């Protein structure tokens, strides 16, 4: 071996080809229109509610309880997605079996089914008199109007995003890289922990974020199964509801001003959270952005 290797190093990523002005204008108009659509309701809400109302909403213990419950329950739902969704994504990505397509379709179903229907379906199996009602009460995890009901609905509607994102991410990991690692001495578990999982992590985290967002925004299923949440299990706060149900309730009473204020408050919190995540990703201090992972 002597001297430098032949072949110039590849161009650094991020260098872009010049775009034609017409094509660029088209892109700007199209994405601008979509952005406008996103902005209209946000601006409407924020301008409808005076700042003082938003501050007052932030100080209200009722609002805080609802927001607290929402984050707590959605956190549990994300935990469930990690525990159950990621292994399922791995299974679907790495194994072919009879009924693979059926399982995949079943996983995607919660994404398209109206969630009111999901709540109703779950409601039918947990009402008094059903075997599941007896079982859940015996185990101390009653579902109807408890945090377990909230979590159950949230998992149902949100876990598919983690399963599907994990499946895609695991599938995108090059088999040859895994085989090279195995041949270098890594057993199958070591290869998973040191190669497959780190390489899939970025996509999995994106899926978890979507799952969390979906869980937070859920309302349809909750209206049926856990309209109000009574203290029990891991939740021992006041009788409350998730923020979506809470806002729906205020709206139902015709109090538009309060509904707008609480909505605005939650919008600001959610926006701040996503901003932090995006900035964290760009700044490179999250592990999955290192090493030019095929970007």
């Amino acid at each position, binding site marked *: 071996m002597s001297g430098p290797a032949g072949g110039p190093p590849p161009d650094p990523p991020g260098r872009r080809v010049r775009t034609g002005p017409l094509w660029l204008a088209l892109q700007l108009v199209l994405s601008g229109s979509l952005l406008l659509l996103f902005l209209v309701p946000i601006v409407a809400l924020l301008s409808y509610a005076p700042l003082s109302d938003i501050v007052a909403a932030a100080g209200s213990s009722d609002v805080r309880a609802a927001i607290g419950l929402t984050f707590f329950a959605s956190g549990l739902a994300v935990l469930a997605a990690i525990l159950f969704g990621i292994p399922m994504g791995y299974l679907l990505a790495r194994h072919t079996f009879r009924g693979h397509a059926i399982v995949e379709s079943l996983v995607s179903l919660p994404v398209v089914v109206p969630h009111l229907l999901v709540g109703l379906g779950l409601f039918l199996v947990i009402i008094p008199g059903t075997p599941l009602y007896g079982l859940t009460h015996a185990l101390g995890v009653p579902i109807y109007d408890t945090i377990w009901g909230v979590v159950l609905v949230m998992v149902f509607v949100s876990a598919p995003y983690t399963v599907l994102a994990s499946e895609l991410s695991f599938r995108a990991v090059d088999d040859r890289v895994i085989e090279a690692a195995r041949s*270098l001495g890594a057993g199958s578990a070591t290869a998973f922990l040191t190669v497959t999982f780190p390489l899939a992590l970025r996509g999995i985290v994106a899926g978890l974020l979507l799952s969390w967002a979906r869980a937070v925004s859920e309302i349809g299923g909750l209206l049926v199964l856990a309209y109000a949440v009574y203290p029990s299990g891991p939740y021992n706060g006041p009788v409350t509801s998730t923020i979506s149900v809470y806002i729906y309730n205020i709206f139902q009473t015709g109090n538009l001003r309060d509904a707008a204020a609480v909505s605005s408050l939650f919008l600001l919190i959610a926006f701040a959270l996503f901003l932090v995540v995006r900035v964290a990703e760009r700044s490179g201090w999250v592990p999955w952005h290192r090493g030019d992972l095929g970007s």
Partner: protein
Amino acid sequence: MTGAWTVEGLETRLDGFRLGPVDLTIAPGRAVAVLGSSGAGKTTLLRTLAGFLRPRGGRILRDGVDLSDRAPEERGLGYVPQGLGLLPHRTVARNVAYPLEIRARPDALRRTRELLDQFHLAALADRYPARLSGGEQQRVAIARALAAEPQLIVWDEPWQGLDVLARYELGLALHELREVEQVPMVFVTHDPGLAFSVADSFLLLRGGRVVAQGDTETLLRAPVDAFSARFVGFENVFEPVALAAGAPGSLRGWLRERAGPEGIAFPRPEIPSAKDDGPAWEGIVRSVRPGPHGITVEAVADDLLVAVRVAPDVDAPFPALGSRLRFAVDPATLRPLGPPGAEASR
């Protein structure tokens, strides 16, 4: 340090594709080239050796120990897949350190530094593989393979995507692996020129079957069929069907009399000179391909397209397309094609 490897009657099936039986012996410090066109089963053979495909039959032995049922990580075999399989999320140094880290070797840091120095990678230690040139990536792959102290390196397409200089350097690195480190090697390529520059012996696959096997000299001197003759670089390869209609005394008739059961191959004939005693033929020039070692002219003679070499020292203009060209085929250069030991069908 490294043992002798023996492959006995190895057979594999993959999605309806059948490979084998393959028999192979690899002595310490030796290199075997697995040749064949796309879909011949080269990668399948390598992945079976490495333990990623379960053999349907046969055995893989190292110093007499059967490894056929061992997991890939327990074979002491370094498999370098196509595209090298570098870990994209680890720097050069951490790629090289990977086999040492998973073995929790206390001297991991020192050994990594040694290997980085040996393969001129110290300056690139903190780079990620995506930011390296093809040649640099190859060196990382070799250094990392050596860190695992393999008793056999199995490499799929070492030369893929390398420019001329990097190919040359990789050749040097592979020689170092064999001669200094005494690590035997099995590598896959579809380029016989590169294979012959490194390998002592070869295995030629076609449709999953071994069609020729032996040392590189044998392959060049006695190709077994038209496929292997073309594969090793013969341009003038004619199967029996191409020679069938030739009249006695014509070029086709003359070749047919000297062909084996699978046809005949011969190197590019030259312009006849006074010392040639074979018959001379005449063809019409179809293409002219100049190169440093001479001009290759393709001419049609007696319905055969024959590649003729025109020596570079001939102080004459290039032959013109459509012009007539005389050439002589030295009977000593003719290679009748057929299985070893088969009689030519004279």
